[in-house]
């Protein structure tokens, strides 16, 4: 179907970009760089998995980065406060699940549009966790010498960096969740037509909760990886918003439609691949982050236009403004 061919198109584009960079950019085509690229895009991949599931239900989670930062803040504070890793992890896990439940609850039971609900919770979570946990601080520094953190940031499984292994695992889990489970089928059904899904007796509300909790869990895992490797949790990651938009961009580029019901784990892989290659290549070319933003933004626009050309919306079925 056309959805699938978008993925292959993006993959082909990414490959083409990789080839071009390999030929023209010094240092791109090295084993070390590939490993680097994979490591740098691990957290993005993990976040995209959660976001993709939410978007396929025809939702959006603008609070994902806020959850990520809040959960890893809780983890970091407990760790520096002298609690053990298991306790800190448990608390962070409970916090992430609760935040996911709140999001899902607002969307499923109050029927607030997800865009607005998660915009609001993002503010609430960011401000609230800084206020309540950090007493207003912007930053939590993690003890790099803690063995758990050292393991996450530089450990390896079978020669693969741990973060990359985790990303692959999450991709696999997402793939299974979406294609092999009842939850997955419900997710697609909801994205396709929520009214029909509800009327045919699918547990729409429960699955919405699951989707947002899943997004929150990916946020927690990505947060642990980011915090461990950079040694800090920084609240400006939320306020300046670039990471959030990058996640949405990855998901959408690969062919997961914001109108729901379309896309798969392949889309995430394709999207991440393209973004990671472009980012890495441009960084190697010493392009500034802003110039990279320009290129990525234009890539996104091009992708939207192409997607729209290939899957035009049916003017007979649209009612109110379709975002």
């Amino acid at each position, binding site marked *: 179907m056309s959805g699938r061919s978008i993925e292959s198109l993006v993959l082909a584009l990414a490959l083409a970009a990789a080839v071009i960079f390999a030929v023209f950019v010094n240092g791109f085509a090295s084993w070390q760089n590939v490993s680097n690229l994979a490591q740098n895009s691990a957290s993005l991949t993990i976040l995209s998995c959660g976001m993709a599931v939410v978007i396929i239900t025809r939702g959006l989670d603008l609070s994902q980065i806020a959850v990520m930062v809040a959960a890893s803040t809780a983890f970091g504070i407990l760790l520096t406060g002298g609690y053990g890793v298991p306790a800190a992890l448990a608390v962070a896990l409970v916090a992430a699940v609760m935040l996911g439940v709140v999001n899902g609850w607002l969307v499923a039971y109050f029927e607030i549009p997800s865009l607005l609900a998660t915009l609001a919770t993002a503010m609430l979570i960011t401000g609230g966790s800084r206020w309540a946990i950090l007493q207003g601080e912007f930053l939590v520094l993690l003890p790099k010498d803690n063995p758990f953190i050292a393991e996450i940031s530089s450990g390896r499984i079978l020669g693969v960096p741990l973060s990359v292994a985790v990303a692959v695992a999450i991709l696999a889990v997402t793939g299974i969740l979406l294609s092999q489970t009842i939850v997955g089928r419900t997710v697609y059904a909801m994205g396709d037509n929520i009214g029909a899904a509800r009327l045919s007796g699918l547990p729409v509300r429960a699955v919405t909760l699951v989707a947002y909790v899943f997004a929150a869990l990916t946020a927690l895992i990505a947060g642990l990886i980011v915090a461990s490797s950079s040694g800090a949790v920084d609240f400006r990651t939320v306020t300046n918003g670039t990471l959030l938009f990058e996640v949405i961009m990855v998901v959408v580029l690969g062919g997961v439609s914001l109108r729901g019901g379309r896309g798969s784990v392949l889309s995430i892989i394709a999207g991440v691949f393209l973004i990671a290659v472009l980012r890495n290549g441009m960084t190697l070319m010493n392009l500034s982050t802003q110039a990279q933003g320009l290129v990525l933004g234009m890539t996104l626009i091009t992708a939207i236009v192409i997607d729209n050309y290939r899957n035009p919306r049916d003017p007979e079925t649209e009612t*109110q403004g379709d975002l």
Partner: protein
Amino acid sequence: MSSTDAPTSISTRARLKTPLAVVSFRRVVSDLLNRNWIEGAIPFIAFFILVAVVLTTTDDYFSLSNLNTLTRYFSDVALVLLAMLLVVAIGGIDLSVGSNYALCVLASLYLFHIVELPTFLVLPLAILCGAAVGLINGILTGVLGCGALLATLGTMITFRGLFVICSQASLVEISTSFRADPVWDFFGFDDFFGMPFSFWIFAAVAVVLYLMFRHSRFGWHILAVGGNRKAARHAGVPINRVILLTYVAAGALVGFAGFLYAARENSAGSDTGVGLEFFVLTGLVVGLGGFVPGRGSVFNALIGFATIFLLNNALRNAGFRGDFVQASMGFILVAVLAIDMKYRKERHRLLARAYLDPAPLALAPVMELGDLAPGKGANKLAEATLIAAGKIDGPEDVILDREGHLYCGTRDGRIMRLRAPDYTEVETFAKTGGRPLGMAFDAEDRLVVCIAGMGLYRLSGAGEIERLTSQTARSWTSLEDDRAIRMADDLDIAPDGRIFFSDATKRYEMETWAVDLLEGRPNGRLLCYDPKTGATTTVCDHLHFPNGVCVSHDGRHLLVVSTTLCSVMSFDLDRIEDGPREFITGLPGYPDNINRASDGGYWIALAGMRSPALDLAMQDPALRVRMAKRVPPTNWLFANLNVGGVLKCSANGTIEDAYWDAPEGPLYMITSMREHRGALFLAGVLNDKIGRLALTGADPAWTAPNSYWPR
């Protein structure tokens, strides 16, 4: 024939009291829920509470100088808010406003400080810059049909990158420029009639947008496209063009805002405008109570934004830190959205539950009828001959003109004429579009009709329809706007030409009138239309389902039927403001129309009969509330509308004769009757025929037109 003592006896009957207002908690709740402005009132109330709190907790936060400062910083962001309102109204969203804003700030600064253009050139170029970004958004969303959220996310990232790259080259140079210009400073810094000039610009734009949404074709097109794109397209609205232009207009507004910021701050940083889209969106959501396409409520949006803006500023000013401010913003946003969504979902349910508002009502006991009581004699209406059976649908009233032609209204809104003498041929006399009920002929033999849902109308001899009135003055004791005449029921015309007519209920429709009966509240009113002045006045408000209206034979009194109270009251036409007097009480059934009889008495149609169970239930409102809540409407206690008949009373209201219909028909639920040349013509609102009953002992020459307007 007419007894001379009757009028005096009418004039000395007991006065009836009508309440000045209906006081009921349920009524207030349901009326409030019914008002459209109640949604807009929520942000309003929030705003005033906030202002009150700030007033009481600070010393001089609202000092003139601080107000001046606040409005200065409010104005340019408010312009961005209006831009967002535009695109949200069309069913889109614009995430790129922040980047666009930054770009326009930079363009203004660059053109002013480095190119050194005069200010009056910088301004249009800045607006042009914004409009260009808007154009790209518009092409993506409007022409190419991409989703607005994604497309503007793309332009947001792209233009942010562009802005930062451009600003790196020029910001340092800009920051070292010392060019000053009075016009530039005027926009950014100076006051004009005590307020910042930028505030006046914003206010002007807001007014223009308000007028645009209200009065211009373009504004209506925006709302149409936002409300339902498919419907708008089918209605011939050039959707793509409207969307494109809306985004361009929004971009231009952002450009203007950027110019104002540049003139004020003379500076930009790489984070100028970051997060602006979400800040503005927050204000919009608080003002509109959610994300509502197809609504261009400029005022509400601004109030919502003012709330957010003020809260933000006041909290920080009071020394609260950024994290706390952010958390409280998030909390408020969640609360507003949750309350609003709950309200939207529950409103109709709540309204339906609160709407039926029963009151205790003790009816006068049924009068002694003696031999006239139903079942005592023959059911005289069974003897009626039928006219036009199956050819007319639902004649509520029937009337005959001087020539004896018969007129009646039908359910589909037509007024039919049946020609004398055999009444076999049914022809459409006029099409009204409403539900024609009571009728009367005026002095010039024109038919005047009460049309439920429309008002009072007059038909010419050729059947051309002309509206006399559809509104009366608003009563100030009611929350509900009751200007519109909701259910004009019956009328009669006084000798001086004034038309008196009843508006049976202000709260229910033609289809649900029986529920008004169940409510037992004085929801109706008596109105008067004076053809000489063209004015409509409320003669007497708060009557219990006023129905039939008849001017007495001597032309000095007005008889008005109250269906709910099973009574007839009278008004003195010379002192109509004195209110009603008792005329007949304790009727055995629910009276509908009342008309003159040839002997100086009156005919009263009984649409249904009273039952002791319902009479008792009327005394207990709680029972009826429970019933309405627990039992489906088809099983509610109702008036017995299966049998009824016609009563004949004398000039002073004594019942003299009764014509009951037979349970097996063919006529049932008689709502009106007219005497004409010794025969009684009978109509029922649910009948498909008209009955004709020959009267014994009636004046065979008497006609109603002649009785009213003798020639």
